C-alpha cells in the first residue's frame, strides 16, 4: 500500500497536477488586470466603508516607522491621516496595511489598499503598472557613510572592495550599474536594514532617499555622515493607486494639490515642520 517515491507518478497524479495547474491559470486570468473597468469607483467604496485602507512600509523613518510603544508613526502616516480627515472629518478613519516594496503595486491593484504612501518615487517604468498623483514631497537620492570613511564623493564609492547597501527595487539596481558598478551591491528589503548594514560595517555606504539618511545621521552624529549632493537631482515622492480609476485619482490628486499649494497648506506645513524642522516649500 505504501507508495514508493522511486515509482514514477501514476497517471492519476499527473491528471491532478494538470487540473490544478489549469485551475491556477484560470484564476490568474480571471483576476482583473490593472486597467480593467470597475463599476464603482474606489471613492464610493471608501466612503461607503467609512475608512480608507492605506499601504505603508514600516522601516523608513521619519516617513513611517514603529516607535518605542509599537505604534506606526511618521510624516507619511500623518499625511494619510490628513487625507482621512478630508474624507470623513476623522483622522482615525484609516487602516494601515503594512506592505513590502515587492508587493506595493499588487497591493493597490488588487484592492487590498485604496492607495499607497510609502516613500515611493515617480519613475516612468512604474507608471506602466500603477497611477501616481502629484508629488507630495520632493526628495533626492543620496548616500551615507561612516564618519571615519575615506569616501568623500559618489565616485569614491565605485571601488571593488566597497559594499553599498541598497534597496531591492529596480531603480536601485539601475543606479548601481550607473554610478558605482565596481562596488558590490547588497540588496535589502527595508531602508532600516540599509543603515544597520553601514553602522555595523557590513557595507561602506548606504544609498537611498536623502531625508531618510538625514534623519539617521541625526540619530548617530558621531558615527555617520551624509555625502553632499544627490546622484540624480530632484526626485518626486507621490501617492500611488490603481490605474484606471479616474474619480479616485482626481480626488486624491486634488487633496495633494491643496496640501502643497492651497487650503490644506497650513496643516501640511505643520506636519512638515514637525518631522523635518523647516517649513514646507510653497511653489
Amino acid at each position, binding site marked *: 500500500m505504501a507508495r514508493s517515491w522511486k515509482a514514477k507518478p501514476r497517471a492519476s497524479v499527473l491528471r491532478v497536477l494538470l487540473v490544478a495547474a489549469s485551475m491556477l491559470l484560470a484564476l*490568474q486570468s480571471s483576476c482583473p488586470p490593472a486597467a480593467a473597468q470597475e463599476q464603482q469607483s474606489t471613492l464610493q467604496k471608501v466612503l461607503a466603508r467609512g475608512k480608507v485602507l492605506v499601504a505603508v512600509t514600516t522601516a523608513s523613518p521619519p516617513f513611517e516607522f514603529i516607535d518605542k510603544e509599537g505604534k506606526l508613526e511618521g510624516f507619511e502616516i500623518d499625511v494619510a491621516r490628513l487625507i482621512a480627515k478630508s474624507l470623513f472629518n476623522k483622522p482615525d478613519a484609516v487602516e494601515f496595511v503594512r506592505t513590502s516594496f515587492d508587493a506595493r503595486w*499588487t497591493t493597490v491593484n488588487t484592492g487590498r489598499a485604496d492607495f499607497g504612501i510609502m516613500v515611493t518615487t515617480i519613475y516612468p517604468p512604474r507608471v506602466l503598472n500603477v497611477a501616481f498623483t502629484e508629488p507630495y514631497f520632493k526628495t533626492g537620492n543620496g548616500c551615507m557613510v561612516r564618519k571615519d570613511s575615506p569616501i568623500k564623493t559618489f565616485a569614491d564609492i565605485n571601488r571593488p572592495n566597497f559594499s553599498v547597501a541598497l534597496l531591492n527595487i529596480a531603480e536601485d539596481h539601475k543606479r548601481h550599474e550607473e554610478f558605482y558598478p565596481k562596488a558590490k551591491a547588497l540588496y535589502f528589503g527595508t531602508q532600516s536594514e540599509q543603515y544597520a548594514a553601514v553602522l*555595523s560595517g557590513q557595507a561602506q555606504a548606504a544609498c537611498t532617499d536623502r531625508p531618510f539618511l538625514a534623519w539617521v545621521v541625526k540619530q548617530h552624529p558621531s558615527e555617520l555622515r551624509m555625502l553632499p549632493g544627490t546622484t540624480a537631482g530632484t526626485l518626486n515622492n507621490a501617492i500611488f493607486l490603481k490605474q484606471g480609476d479616474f474619480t479616485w485619482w482626481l480626488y486624491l490628486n486634488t487633496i495633494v494639490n491643496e496640501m502643497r499649494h492651497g487650503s490644506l497648506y497650513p496643516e501640511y506645513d505643520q506636519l512638515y515642520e514637525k518631522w523635518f524642522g523647516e517649513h514646507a516649500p510653497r511653489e
Partner: protein
Amino acid sequence: MAFIRLFIHVIPQLVPGLWLTVGLAVGATVISAVVGLAFALAAVSKIAPARLAVAAYVEFLRNTPLLVQMFFIFFGLPFLGVRMSPFSAALLALAVQHTAFFSEIYRAGLQAVSKRSHEAAKALGLGYWKSLRLVILPQAIVKVLPAMTNELVQIVKDTSVASTIAVAELTLRGGTIAEQTASTSVAFVAVACYYLVLTGIVTVAARVVENRLRFAE
C-alpha cells in the same frame, strides 16, 4: 495567456540566483558533513564533557529558528570586529545549523553499528582510527544514507533564508523580479518551481549514490 508569457520571461532571469543557491548549499553541506562527523565522534566518545558540549550545542540549534541565527551572525558579529560578506554569514549560519543535525544523524548511525563489529575490529588488531575508517564508519553511513539525503534537501531549502540578509539567491531574485513586473504571483511560483527541480535532482542523485554504495557492500 499573460501568466504563461510572464512565467516564461521570468524563468531565465532567475538563473543568476540559482548559482548562489547552489554555492551556498554545496558549501554548507561540505562543511557540516565534515564537522558534524567530528562532533558525532565526540558525542559517542567516553569523554563526558565532550558529550555534554555537543548535546548542548545540538539542543540549542534545534530549538532556535535559522532566521534569527542568520540575523544574529550577520548583524551581530561585526560588533565583535568580525567582518563578513552576506554570503559568508549565510554560509556560516547554514553550516552551524546543519552541523548539529548531521552530528545527530552520524551519532545514530554510529550507535546502530553492532557491538560485534567493534569487537571484530579489535580482534583483528585495528587501532581506534583504523577500525573507525575501515569497519565502523562505512556501516554507519550506509545505515543513515536516507537521513543524510533528507538533510541535503533541507539544506537546499534553507538557502532561501539567506535572502533576508541580502544574498542574491533565488528567493531574493524572485522578490526583485516581483517588484519590477508588478506581478508577484508569477515570480514566486517560478521560484518555487526552481526549488522543486533542484530538490528533485538532489533526491534522484542521492538515490543513485545510495544504491551504488549499498551494492558495494
